[in-house]
């Protein structure tokens, strides 16, 4: 437990002191919440605008979670490998999984902080949310699925891409491209059919649609992401990504030969 908490404390401090990580994970999504809330509400009826803003805030929250997992996590792993820390850790009596739990807990902390700030700013610029207590709990569950899937991708990038900048840019690239093609930044109904299929299969966009459905209303989503088969797929793929990332990191992440 002491090893995990030591790894966690180090990773949290590093993340919170890294200006670039704070900008891209927290400030950038907030900027888009503000811009989106005043620019993209169009000619929608007045009564619907707060929920459109709510939907935008949720999308940006999900994007913040993606950046935290897909970019900050590989940056932390690749950075420690580049500066020789992993070699040092290998010589010490610590198991890779304990370091992994510490790191991922730190990313979850930053993710939740970013998510909370994005929602607070969204609310401040007029976003409104619906949802019963049960729906809020379900939405939080989907938030954790986004974190799991993003962290899984981040672990893969950090493990397989040895170069620091390469690992960061791969994570950012995956986050931006998959956000764009899965309808995170654009309405689902405007996507071509193959991308609509991708949007339903990709666990992050599917979880985002579920959160919007639960907290901004079903009319904000062009399909029902809460069918049992869709939810099962989202859960299974999110955990699969995390599982693959964890296995890769545990087996290859500390390999220095």
């Amino acid at each position: 437990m002491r090893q995990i908490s030591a790894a966690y404390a180090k990773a949290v401090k590093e993340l919170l002191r890294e200006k670039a990580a704070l900008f891209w994970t927290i400030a950038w999504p907030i900027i888009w919440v503000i811009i989106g809330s005043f620019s993209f509400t169009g000619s929608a009826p007045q009564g619907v605008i707060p929920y459109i803003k709510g939907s935008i805030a949720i999308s940006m929250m999900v994007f913040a979670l993606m950046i935290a997992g897909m970019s900050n996590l590989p940056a932390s792993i690749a950075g420690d490998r580049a500066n020789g820390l992993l070699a040092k850790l290998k010589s010490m009596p610590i198991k890779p999984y304990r370091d992994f739990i510490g790191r991922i807990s730190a990313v979850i902390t930053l993710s939740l902080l970013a998510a909370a700030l994005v929602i607070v700013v969204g609310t401040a610029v007029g976003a409104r949310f619906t949802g019963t207590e049960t729906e809020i709990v379900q939405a939080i569950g989907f938030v954790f699925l986004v974190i799991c899937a993003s962290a899984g991708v981040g672990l893969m990038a950090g493990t397989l891409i040895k170069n620091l900048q390469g690992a960061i840019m791969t994570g950012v690239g995956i986050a931006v491209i998959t956000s764009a093609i899965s309808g995170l930044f654009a309405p689902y109904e405007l996507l071509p059919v193959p991308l609509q299929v991708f949007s339903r299969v990709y666990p992050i966009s599917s979880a985002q649609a579920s959160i919007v459905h639960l907290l901004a209303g079903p009319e904000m989503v062009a399909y029902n992401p809460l069918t049992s088969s869709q939810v099962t797929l989202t859960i299974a793929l999110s955990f699969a990504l995390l599982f693959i990332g964890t296995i890769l990191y545990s087996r290859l992440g500390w390999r220095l030969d």
Partner: protein
Amino acid sequence: MFAIHVENLVKTYDRRRVLNGVNLDVPEGEFYALMGPNGSGKTTLASIIAAVKMQDSGIVEVCGNKPAQAKESIGYVPQENFSSPKLSGKENLIYFAGLLGYSRSQANQLTAGMLNKLGLSEQADKRVDKYSGGMRKRLEVATAIFPGIKVLILDEPTTGLDPAARRAFFNMVQEIMDKKTSIILITHIGSDAELASRVGLIDNGKMIAEGTPDELKRKHAIEDVITVETAMKSDSVTSVLKDYSINGKVTESEAGYKIYSRNGDRVLADVVRNLDQAGHKVMRIEMARPTLEDVFFRLTERYLQEAIE
């Protein structure tokens, strides 16, 4: 029982044998320097002893156990700066103490004492990216000297430090170490290796010589080393100097020409006179006792610095 026992160690990368049957024994409490150029295999040897890499074949024991089973006894300081630049010196040490299983209060107490010993108390709360190279290296050594460490492995710890800082660094290491702790220093700097009680010279994955610094110099580099700097470099200078060097060997380096002589004292005046007669102005001439770098040169026909390049 040796603190470190290595027997017939072999390690291959991409079909290239980096270590080729290395043998090494380091008794408890010994300060041992492993000296060789880049690519000689010394860092690979250190990282296998430190449980960071696995050998292809051969035996490696640290305090009687395989390295992976002796991690509590190993303090390893890799060549790269591994301390986190975003954390303070104290936070870095507390992190490593936590990894070793110390509680927060134990870690606080322990690290305060270590920072004091290392002369870093005043900078304890300063972020490491504000530290000088020497301060950062001292901090990193501290991560490898927690109680229970019996073997300290320092991989090129003084790279980038000036001679005074290097000397201060080794004084600090020797002061803080327990008498029973064995130290392995990996280096390509002869003057650093001179501080060790025993030195192993490694080249192309093989130990080519081993002994105390004096033994090595006596056995392999009995000549005096004369360095001559002339106003202009030319083949004619080389040809004059050839007559005064053993086997006619003259080497050229940034510092000037080097020749080796068994009678340095008597040869100096002749060298200056003959160079003068040949029309070459001598800017500087000096004689020195051989160093470990000269020993390496005698054994491999290469300067350590050339081998590094």
